[in-house]
């Protein structure tokens, strides 16, 4: 909402300066977003008298004159038709910046005559629209004084109006608030009522009083829409960014911004028959002023004539019934439409207008007759013509809202003492009718306020006028030491992040949406739902991601494109497997591609492989307090992984993670050359350790006897999983075997075709006494038998 200072002062009698007004507005909840003061651009400009005005020797329209600033007399060439001997205007000396052109004025030479400055028009100073001639000040204006002192400069204030303060979408509402805050006095509204002289030939019938409880109509004949809109109105509209169109349109726009009162003017000669306010028919067509055609529905409110919908009530007028330069008879509408109806229709058809904006918030239900009178007055004054009697359909009966406030609540709710008399004074100034009922103050809302429903609303009114600064801040207290802030499952998300970062990975945050084209291949087995966004902000952000990987891969792709080939990125965030709330999992996912490091003299750098991804996944599970020793590995990762180089880490059916090399087609889709390792850890699936009864650790039992480590090499089928062999060795004896380590896998010379050799170290730990040779032999045999049974393998010869 924009307004000018002079516009504000037409409603507010005040001596406060601009700065005080601006600060007060923000203080009372009308946040000033911007103040534009044209005076700030007029430094160096001053008044001067035009003397010795003669025709330019080489032109039939230019003049040459002497600009007398009191201290200097400078030769100036002037093209303005209105220049006259002795007139006082605004002079721009060489060196000042001309606001309109944003250029520094230089010495000019026009058709051979030098010019040492310029006499200015309003437009050149950016203080008005007039560019037909130079500014003419009263003859007795002193010369040589700064321009800002003598010009009628009107600063523009831009305010952000919150949705609850609909009445402040009109200048008068803002003036009223300022008056309540002690900045001046609200001037009475002085609107002349026009009685009218004839019956309107166009009648109004309202079929839906629910949606349109009041309709005030009036016929005005013989208007002249070719006249100029008065300068004061044009200036105000221009200043707030509205283009002047025609007097009739300008008047409705002006009242909309002056009183927050939407109006509509039809060209009465284009209306066929009477006006009928009714709900539209399903599929009824309507071409609005924005020249778009809409197919309306039965919940839309139409202002109709015999030819159909001519105006979408309260939202936008129709193209065919609007006023033009040639309009001579008009029909003026000032009606009330229900916010719900306007909001729904506006939203449905996505039509934005100043009118909709006001109706869907709140329009003073008692301002219909008033608005009609105001518009009539201005139309007759500016365009001439003759008004019919006013027609009123429905009525302005309005049940005002009532709320109560207990003065004691100021202290117990807000923390500041305010006397009851002060509360009453503030509410009265804001237009409430107040009375005491016991210890409560009863407050009846003024009709322009639709937002006051409860005690808290009244508390806000009081507190914003006295100022939030009056409330003394008070630190919060608590009785005991604070509880743990994060739950274990929240804390482990933090730990997992730090663990992955300490493994050399870079944490990123990517959008929760991704491109459905890319996401397609990342749907998990069994996921049937594609969670598409209804109106995505762009086509490549149209699906709630089924996996974190596509966005990580896009990140990798961008880094590779910048010449960074070694990429280790991870993210912890949600993936979505369904559209309903909670159909999401928290995933720690990462990708690695390229080399572990750039090449180095110690030759440690190598390409990332599956075991890096597996190590990352296991580390994340461990960081999440998962039962890492019990994790099983299966080879059934989703299809976007390389079938032969991927796996799942699980506890039975519960999948904790997938890891592996991504399928080459995936890398290709993201234009990534080379292999990409990836992992996805499902943190919600990782069981939290059971809460121990006691924090004391189990007693450490140290054996007095040295353990014995023995190496074995088994020849097994190539298809045998190493993990099975290790497990078989481990399970050979539960009492004495404490560790099994795999240290070699070999295929080739001396190993038969289709077989591989796996070498392990098994550690035996004696308990009561040292092993005898026989004990060791027995244990080794157990290992050989167990492995043979599980893998069909035999000791390598």
């Amino acid at each position: 909402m924009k307004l000018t200072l002079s516009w504000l002062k037409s409603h507010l009698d005040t001596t406060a300066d601009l700065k005080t007004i601006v600060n007060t507005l923000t203080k009372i909840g009308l946040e000033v977003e911007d103040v534009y003061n044209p005076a700030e651009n007029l430094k160096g400009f001053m008044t001067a008298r035009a003397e010795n005005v003669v025709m330019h020797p080489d032109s039939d329209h230019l003049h040459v004159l002497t600009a007398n600033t009191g201290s200097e007399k400078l030769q100036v060439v002037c093209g303005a038709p209105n220049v006259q001997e002795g007139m006082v205007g605004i002079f721009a000396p060489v060196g000042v910046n001309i606001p309109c052109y944003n250029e520094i004025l230089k010495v000019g030479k026009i058709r051979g005559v030098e010019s040492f400055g310029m006499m200015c028009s309003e437009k050149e100073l950016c203080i008005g629209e007039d560019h037909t001639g130079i500014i003419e000040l009263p003859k007795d204006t002193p010369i040589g004084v700064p321009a800002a002192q003598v010009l009628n400069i009107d600063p523009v204030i831009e305010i952000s109006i919150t949705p609850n303060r609909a009445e402040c979408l009109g200048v008068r509402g803002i003036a009223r608030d300022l008056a309540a805050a002690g900045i001046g006095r609200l001037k009475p509204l002085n609107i002349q009522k026009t009685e009218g002289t004839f019956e309107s030939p166009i009648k109004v019938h309202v079929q839906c009083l629910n949606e349109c409880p009041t309709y005030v109509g009036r016929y005005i004949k013989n208007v002249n829409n070719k006249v100029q809109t008065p300068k004061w109105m044009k200036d105000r509209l221009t200043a707030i960014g509205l283009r002047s169109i025609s007097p009739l349109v300008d008047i409705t726009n002006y009242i909309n911004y002056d009183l927050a009162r939407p109006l509509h003017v039809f060209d009465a000669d284009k209306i066929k028959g009477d006006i009928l306010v009714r709900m539209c028919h399903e599929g009824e067509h309507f071409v609005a002023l924005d020249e778009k055609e809409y197919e309306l529905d039965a919940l839309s409110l139409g202002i109709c004539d015999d030819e159909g919908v001519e105006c979408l009530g309260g939202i936008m007028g129709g193209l065919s019934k609007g006023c033009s330069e040639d309009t001579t008879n008009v029909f003026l509408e000032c009606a009330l439409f229900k916010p719900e109806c306007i909001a729904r229709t506006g939203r449905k058809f996505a039509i934005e207008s100043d009118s909709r904006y006001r109706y869907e918030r709140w329009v003073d239900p008692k301002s219909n007759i008033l608005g009609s009178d105001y518009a009539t007055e201005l139309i007759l004054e500016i365009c001439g013509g003759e008004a019919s009697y006013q027609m009123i359909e429905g009525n302005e009966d309005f049940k005002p809202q009532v709320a109560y406030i207990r003065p004691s609540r100021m202290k117990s709710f807000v923390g500041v003492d305010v006397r009851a008399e002060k509360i009453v004074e503030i509410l009265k100034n804001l237009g409430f009718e107040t009375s005491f009922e016991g210890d409560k103050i009863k407050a009846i809302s003024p009709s322009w306020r639709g937002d006051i429903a409860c005690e808290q609303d009244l508390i806000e009114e009081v507190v914003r006028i006295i100022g939030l600064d009056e409330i003394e801040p008070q630190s919060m207290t608590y009785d005991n030491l604070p509880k743990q802030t994060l739950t274990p499952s929240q804390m482990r998300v933090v730990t997992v992040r730090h663990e992955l970062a300490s493994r050399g990975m870079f944490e990123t945050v990517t959008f929760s949406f991704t491109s459905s084209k890319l996401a397609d291949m990342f749907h998990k087995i069994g996921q049937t739902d594609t969670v598409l966004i209804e109106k995505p902000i762009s086509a490549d952000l149209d699906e709630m991601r089924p996996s974190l990987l596509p966005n990580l891969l896009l990140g990798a792709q961008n880094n590779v494109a910048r010449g960074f080939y070694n990429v280790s990125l991870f993210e912890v965030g949600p993936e979505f497997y369904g559209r309903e709330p909670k159909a999401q999992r928290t995933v720690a996912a990462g990708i690695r591609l390229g080399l572990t490091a750039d090449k180095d003299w110690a030759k440690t750098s190598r390409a990332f492989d599956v075991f890096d991804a597996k190590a990352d996944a296991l580390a994340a599970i461990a960081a999440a307090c998962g039962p890492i020793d019990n994790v099983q590995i299966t080879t059934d990762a989703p299809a976007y992984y390389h079938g032969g180089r991927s796996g799942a880490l699980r506890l039975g059916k519960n999948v904790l993670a997938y890891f592996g090399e991504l399928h080459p087609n995936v890398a290709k889709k993201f234009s990534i050359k080379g292999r990409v390792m990836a992992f996805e850890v499902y943190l919600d699936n990782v069981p939290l350790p059971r809460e121990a009864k006691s924090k004391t650790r189990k007693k450490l039992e140290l054996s007095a006897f040295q353990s014995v480590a023995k190496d074995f090499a088994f020849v097994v089928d190539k298809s045998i999983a190493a993990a099975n062999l290790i497990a078989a060795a481990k399970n050979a004896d539960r009492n004495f075997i404490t560790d099994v380590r795999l240290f070699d896998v070999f295929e080739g010379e001396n190993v038969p075709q289709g077989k591989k050799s796996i070498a392990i170290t098994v550690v035996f730990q004696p308990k009561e006494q040292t092993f005898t040779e026989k004990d060791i032999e027995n244990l080794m045999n157990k290992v050989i038998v167990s492995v043979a049974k599980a893998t069909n393998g035999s000791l390598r010869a």
Partner: protein
Amino acid sequence: MEDMNLLESEIMAQIAGASDLKHLDDVRVAVLGKKGVLTEKMKTLGQMEEHLRIETAKKLNTLKNKIEEAFGAKKSALEDAALNTRLQEEKIDVTLPVRPEVQGRIHPVSKIFEEVFAIFGALGFEVAEGPDIEDQFHNFNALNMPLNHPARQMQDTFYIASKQSEPFDMESAYVARTHTSGIQIRTMENKKPPIRIIAPGRTYRSDMDATHTPMFHQVEGLVVDKTTTFAELKGCLSDFVKAFFELDNIPVRYRPSYFPFTEPSAEMDIGCLKTKTELKIGAGDDWLEILGCGMVHPNVLRAGGIDPDEYQGFAFGVGIDRLAMLKYGIPDLRTFFESDLRWLKHYGFAPLDFSSLTGGLNGNGGSLR
């Protein structure tokens, strides 16, 4: 006797002349070995008369001890020399770089969340979470934003049809949560006052330009009990910004504002100094909007199953990305989500950097490498 002295000097000369351990060992064998000169001498003792034998044996033993000592000394000397030679040979260039190690990073958004947890944790808040896709009840209606509420139009909401294969129906659709305020409702539904929670998370609005991204992060706060006032809201949030920006004094201003879910509502500004090149938080003549807050609207308490005549409290919401930008001088919001390794390395945090009030909110994870 002469004989003995001569033998001693001869042997000593041989020991002294040994050039390496091998040579020394040869000398030792030649002197003390089974057939060594001294051993041979010892062997002759048996044939000697008793008095001569005793005397000779004494001398021989003395000589033997002397020689063994000399051998020992020489051996140590030779070993030292050999070790010195080895050490000389083993010299390497320690100025070579170490084997490469990559230090990862924590994203600034995660860091700010940790900092916020640390501060509000000290004020007795717990962290609550909720789903990213919300029903309209929790995202709007329960927050005093019925369907036709203008504030609902102001938030550019992403909708998700509630059923996959049917035509889109706005009224039953789910939304990508426009704020984490829905968690307030979910908390009240499940917990009796007193409540002190913060609700962090991703939030979504259909807005993309220089200062907006369609996803951003928020933390909401909710306090509900019987006595909490707006004065405590001010105290709590002032304490927060001071702790967060790690400044003893930050000018703070509250402006009345409007949110459907609070009444009275306010926006909080902090003081700052704006120059052409930088923005400094703290003293200065400019204000920077930092968060929205207010006393919980009675309708919201009711929607959460709490009696507004008995309980009251406050709520607030802060943009996490914006806090990161302000605190760490990160100029462009869009860069947060681009996964640019150069950016992550520059603006990210060390893996061991943990946030607490005991060890500091940040910068305690050692140098960035």
